[in-house]
C-alpha cells in the first residue's frame, strides 16, 4: 500500500527523467558515434578527442585549483559559523546563501565589469596614480570567477558536517592530552572528511564543465576550457557530433571523480586507517 503510493508519487519525476535525461543521453551517444555529414556510424569523433586533451587538462587543472582554494577559504568560514549561537548561525548561513539568490550570469558579468582594463578596479587604481593591472583575460580571473561562484557549495556541506561534531568528542580529545592543534588534526579534521569530500565534489563538478565564466573573464587570449569547446562545436563550428563526443568524455570524467570521492569517503568511514 505504502509502496504503491510512493511509486505513484515519484512517477512524474521518473517519467520526466526518462524523457529528458535518459533519452537525450542516448541521443548524445548516438551523435557521438555518427558522422556529422552522412550520419553513418563512425569512431572518427572519438579519435578526434585526442586533439582536445590539452583543453581537458587545463579544465581539470583550473577546477582542482578552484576546489582547493574554495576548501582553504571555506573551511575556516564553515568552522566559524558552526561554532556560533543558533541565531547567529542562521544569519551567517543566509549570508553565505545570499549570492546564490542572484543570477549566476549577472554575477559573472559584474566581475567582468570590475576586472576590465577600463573597469572599476583599474579606474580606482588610476585615480590613486597607480598603473592599470591586467586582470581580465588571465587564468587568475577565471579561477577567481569559479571560486567566487562555487564557494557556497563548499561552505554549506562543510558547515552541515562540522556543526554535527559532538562537542564531547572535542572535550574527550582534550582530556586525552590534545592541545588545540592536536584536537583539530586528530578529531575535528577527520570527522569533517565527509563534508570536505562532498564540498570538493560540489565545486569540482560544476567548475570542470563551466563555460560562461571562462568566456567572460578569460576572453579571447585564453585557452579554451572543455565547456567552451563543447559549446563551440554545437554553436559555431557546426559539428554537434564532435561536441556530443566531448560531452560524453566530460560526463565520464565527472562520474569517475565522484566515484573516487565516494570510495574515498566510505573508506574513511570504514575506519581502515588504524
Amino acid at each position, binding site marked *: 500500500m505504502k509502496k504503491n503510493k510512493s511509486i505513484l508519487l515519484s512517477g512524474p519525476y521518473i517519467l520526466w527523467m526518462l524523457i529528458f535525461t535518459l533519452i537525450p543521453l542516448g541521443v548524445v551517444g548516438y551523435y557521438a558515434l555518427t558522422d556529422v555529414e552522412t550520419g553513418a556510424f563512425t569512431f572518427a569523433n572519438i579519435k578526434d578527442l585526442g586533439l582536445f586533451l590539452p583543453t581537458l587538462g587545463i579544465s581539470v587543472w583550473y577546477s582542482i585549483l578552484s576546489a582547493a582554494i574554495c576548501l582553504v577559504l571555506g573551511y575556516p568560514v564553515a568552522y566559524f559559523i558552526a561554532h556560533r549561537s543558533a541565531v547567529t548561525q542562521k544569519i551567517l548561513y543566509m549570508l553565505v546563501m545570499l549570492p546564490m539568490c542572484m543570477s549566476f550570469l549577472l554575477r559573472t558579468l559584474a566581475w567582468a565589469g570590475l576586472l576590465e582594463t577600463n573597469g572599476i578596479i583599474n579606474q580606482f587604481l588610476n585615480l590613486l596614480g597607480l598603473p592599470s593591472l591586467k586582470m581580465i583575460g588571465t587564468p587568475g580571473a577565471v579561477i577567481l570567477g569559479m571560486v567566487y561562484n562555487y564557494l557556497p557549495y563548499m561552505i554549506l556541506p562543510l558547515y552541515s558536517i562540522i556543526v554535527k561534531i559532538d562537542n564531547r568528542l572535542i*572535550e574527550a580529545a*582534550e*582530556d586525552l*592530552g590534545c592541545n588545540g592543534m*592536536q584536537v583539530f588534526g586528530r578529531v575535528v579534521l577527520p570527522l569533517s572528511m565527509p563534508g570536505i569530500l562532498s564540498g570538493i565534489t560540489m565545486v569540482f563538478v560544476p567548475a570542470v564543465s563551466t563555460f560562461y565564466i571562462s568566456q567572460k573573464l578569460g576572453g579571447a587570449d585564453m585557452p579554451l576550457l572543455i565547456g567552451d569547446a563543447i559549446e563551440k562545436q554545437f554553436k559555431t563550428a557546426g559539428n554537434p557530433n564532435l561536441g556530443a563526443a566531448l560531452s560524453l568524455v566530460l560526463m565520464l570524467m565527472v562520474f569517475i571523480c565522484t566515484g573516487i570521492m565516494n570510495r574515498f569517503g566510505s573508506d574513511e568511514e570504514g575506519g581502515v586507517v588504524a
Partner: protein
Amino acid sequence: MSKELIRLQDLTMEFDGERILDGINLYFNDHEFLTLLGPSGCGKTTTLRIIGGFLTPTSGRVLFDGKCINDVPAYERQINTVFQRYALFPHLDVFGNIAFGLKVAKLPKEEINQRVQEILTVVGMKGYEHRRIDSLSGGQQQRVAIARALVNRPKVLLLDEPLAALDLRLRKDMQNELKRIQQAMGITFIYVTHDQEEALSMSDTVVVMDKGRIQQIGRPEDIYNEPKNAFVADFIGESNILDGVMLSDYKVKFFGRVFDCVDAGFAPNEPVDVVIRPEDIDFVPAGEGHLVGTVTSVTFKGLNYDIIVDFRGFKWLIQTTDYHGEGETVGIRLNPEDIHIMHKSEYSGMFGDYSSYSAEYDELTEDAADEEE
C-alpha cells in the same frame, strides 16, 4: 588511611547570574572511590567538569597534590574522564580509541601496543581491537571508554554517569566491574550519579549534593543510617519524616507520645525531624502497638510489600514481608535504634509524607531526571 590528592576550596560557579555551585569544600584521598550524588541540577556534573578542567570556577580553587590547578588546561592534567554516553571517536576503531592518548603522548609503538593489550584484558575486551565503535553494544562501548581513560594511567578517573545509558542488568554487572577495576588499578575514582543505589554499593565515600551545596559527606552506611537532614533522608532510600520535639537526651516526643531513642546532644525541647526507615518498622497486633493506624494501600514489590498506613492523617510507608490487607487496623512498635533524630533544616516538611504515594511515582520521576541530564 591515605593521603589527600585533590582539594576543592570555596568553589562557586555561576552561569548567567544563576548560582550552580555555592561554596563547595571537599577533599579527595588517593585510591578513594568517591561519589557525588544528587538530583539533576544539583551541581555534581559541574563539580566534575571543574576538576576535569572543562570549566573554570567563578571563584574558589582546585588543588591537586597541594598545587592550584585552576589555570592548568584539561590536556595537561593527570586526570582522565569517562564521559556521559562515552564520547568515543567514531572515526577510529577500538584500538585507535584506546591508543589515542598514548599516541598524542608520542609513546613508542611497542609500548602503545602492549599497554592497549593490557588494558583490554583489564576491561575484558581482548580480541576487539579492530572492531568499529558502532558495531559494539552499549556495555562494550562503556568498557572501551573506561579503557581509553585508564590506559593513560591517570591519578584520578572522573566518571560522569557512566552507567546511565545501560539497562538494569548490565548496570549491576558494570557496578561490580567498576569497583573491581578501581581496586585493581589502585587509583582515585570520582563518580557522578543520581542513582543512590549505585552510590551506596560502590563508594568508599558518598557526597550528597543539592542546590549547589554539599548536604552530607560520609561512608555509605553513615549516610543511610545517620542522614543529616530531610533531603538526605529522602534522597537516600525511603524515609518517613515526622515533626518531633527532643525533650532531653534519648527522649523524643512525636504523635503525642514519648519514645526512647539513641540520639543525644540536642537542646532541651528543640523541634526536630524524626526519621523512621520503612523497613525498620514491625507490625504488632493493634492492642500492643505504640501507634495504631489503618492500612490504606498495599503494593507487592517482589522482595516485600509496600504498605501505606494512615496514623491520624499522616501516612507512613512500611516495607514488610507480612501481608496486611487494605482497611485492616494495625499496630506498630518502634525500637529506640529505629528512630533517627535530625536538626530542622530548610528541607523540613518537604519530604517524608507518603500521603500522595503511588508505586509508579518513583519510577516516573527517575525517568524524568534521566531525560534532563
